[in-house]
């Protein structure tokens, strides 16, 4: 037995190493954005004086810090080019997290564009003025005056835009425009770039997509909100006006750009239209989003088993409010789910014991129907019925556990609470535990994920115990297969889990450990 265990462990390690070689893990390097690093004194919005204006080429920036965010405005297009969140930090640093950083003025947040391309709404220089909590950009054209009035908030991660289009000519003018709701979203971890997605609610239906196949995709209808999301953060815009459609596309390379186009309206001479927009730039936390807008909670998507994921997160949150540790909360959740399922495990074992007692009768049947396996199985089932044995709870309970795992995976990978949460030697429960090793190995690099390896070893142990529990209830042929799968299964799981968030692996480790304990306790009782 000892020897086989060692073989299993060595084999697992070899396979993992080979796997790493074939599918190298994405390197965890941070992208350092070149150029313009503005050093500006932060200005409190409450006592707001026009802030520092840095000329970069022709562009004049205005940097405003609220209690929660640092927002960089640009006079080109009178829009937002950069948003930093003070409440959240960049990976492994104390600097505020950069959520949005856009280089192209045509794609600045709240930048507006004339669909016909005649008016230079997105490229013209706007004149700026400020009021307490407000930044106002104005553009005077021959016939139109555009006023963009931004209002900033200290209490939450939102800002408002009040957009006025005035007709200053003596003729009626038809005006329609596109407005950018999200672009330049920053995701420093390359491996998580694939999680960037656009979601929108158009005509009451949520449309969710990641990669537009065509250059530009539009969804015509009334737009309730448009969200551009990374793994943990959201940029959500809610338009208060008659929308024509929502659109999104890839601007260049990998950059997703989203926005809405407003229905064109005829403005009589010397009158104006007014449109309001709300922008949320912050973490995707349901409780926060709910406070800002009843609909914003819908932007969070935990997949098909979302409601289970939410229930699990709720339980995790409860544990955290008591124990103040997310790692401990995951362990408690695992214990809790195991305790809930324990009656099932126990019952299954009891029927197993009964089966053991019936063994002599079964042997008799086996001899009797040696040449007719179908009849034999039928007779065995009749025997079970007679003595009221039910093999476990049936297939359905087993199948029902799957959604729980899928939901848990969604909850643990997308929940921002685990971001930067440390536990024991694990620095961040939302990432692999990546323990530095002194040497740089050619295949796995200079970090090794210990937790998945622990998991593989525990799984091998667990299967050893469970084959003992099954005892004589399996055939000789099945025993042979068991021997093979005893190693294969844990190794397969090792592959799958190696680069998963350590929170997820932690859950699985605890679950496996508890199964071993349960099964050996049952085994001892006999």
């Amino acid at each position: 037995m000892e020897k086989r265990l060692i073989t299993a462990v060595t084999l697992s390690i070899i396979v993992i190493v080979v796997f790493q070689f074939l599918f190298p893990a994405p390197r965890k390097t941070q992208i350092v954005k070149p150029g313009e690093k503005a050093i500006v004194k932060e200005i409190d919005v409450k006592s707001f004086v026009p802030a520092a204006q840095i000329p970069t080429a022709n562009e004049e920036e205005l940097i405003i810090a609220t209690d929660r965010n640092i927002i960089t405005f640009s006079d080109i297009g009178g829009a937002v080019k950069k948003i930093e969140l003070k409440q959240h930090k960049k990976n492994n640093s104390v600097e505020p997290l950069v959520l949005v950083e856009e280089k192209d003025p045509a794609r600045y947040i709240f930048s507006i564009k004339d669909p016909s391309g005649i008016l230079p709404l997105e490229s013209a220089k706007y004149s700026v003025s400020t009021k307490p909590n407000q930044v106002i950009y104005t553009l005077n054209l021959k016939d139109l005056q555009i006023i963009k009035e931004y209002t900033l908030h200290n209490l939450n991660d939102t800002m408002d835009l009040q957009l006025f289009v005035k007709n200053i000519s003596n003729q009626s003018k038809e005006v329609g425009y596109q407005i950018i709701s999200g672009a330049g979203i920053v995701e420093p971890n390359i491996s998580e770039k694939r999680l960037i997605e656009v979601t929108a609610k158009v005509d009451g239906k949520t449309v969710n997509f990641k990669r537009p196949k065509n250059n530009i995709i539009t969804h015509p209808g009334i737009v309730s909100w448009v969200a551009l999301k990374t793994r943990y953060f959201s940029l959500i815009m809610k338009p208060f006006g008659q929308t024509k459609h929502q659109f999104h596309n890839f601007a260049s390379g990998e950059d997703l750009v989203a926005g809405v186009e407003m229905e064109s309206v005829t403005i009589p001479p010397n009158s104006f239209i007014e449109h309001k927009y709300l922008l949320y730039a912050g973490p995707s936390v349901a409780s926060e989003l709910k406070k800002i807008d009843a609909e914003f909670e819908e932007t969070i998507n935990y997949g098909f088993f979302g409601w289970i994921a939410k229930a699990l997160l709720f339980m995790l949150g409860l544990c955290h409010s008591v124990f103040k540790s997310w790692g401990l909360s995951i362990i408690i959740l695992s214990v809790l789910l195991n305790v809930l399922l324990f009656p099932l495990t126990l019952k299954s074992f009891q029927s197993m014991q009964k089966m053991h007692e019936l063994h002599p009768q079964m042997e008799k049947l086996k001899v009797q129907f040696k040449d007719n396996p179908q009849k034999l199985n039928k007779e065995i089932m009749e025997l079970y019925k007679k003595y009221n044995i039910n093999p476990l709870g049936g297939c359905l309970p087993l199948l029902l556990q799957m959604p729980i795992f899928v939901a848990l995976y969604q909850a643990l990978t997308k929940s921002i609470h685990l971001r930067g949460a440390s536990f024991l030697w694990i620095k961040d429960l939302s990432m692999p535990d990546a323990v530095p090793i002194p040497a740089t190995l050619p295949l796995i690099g200079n970090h090794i994920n210990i937790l998945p390896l622990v998991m593989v070893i525990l799984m091998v142990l667990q299967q050893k115990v469970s084959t003992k529990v099954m005892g004589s209830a399996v055939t000789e042929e099945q025993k042979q297969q068991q021997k093979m799968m005893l190693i294969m299964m844990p190794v397969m799981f090792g592959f799958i889990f190696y680069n998963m968030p350590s929170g997820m692996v932690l859950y699985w480790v605890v679950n496996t450990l508890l199964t071993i304990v349960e099964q050996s306790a049952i085994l001892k009782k006999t």
Partner: protein
Amino acid sequence: MKFVVIYALKFYRNYLSALKIRCCRFYPSCSEYAIGSIEKHGIFLGGVKSIWRLIRCNPFSRGGYDPVQ
């Protein structure tokens, strides 16, 4: 498609199900039933019949002999 599904089911039948305690309340077991049902009725009707069988295979069912019809 049909063959892929049957192949996957057979893989489960031969390798994975050997790892767990036999839990089905019927004969033939759910996975055998699914293979037979999909072979006989095709992927859609057979699939639906298999899902219905899985739903029936719960702690409140009596189980027993239930061949592919």
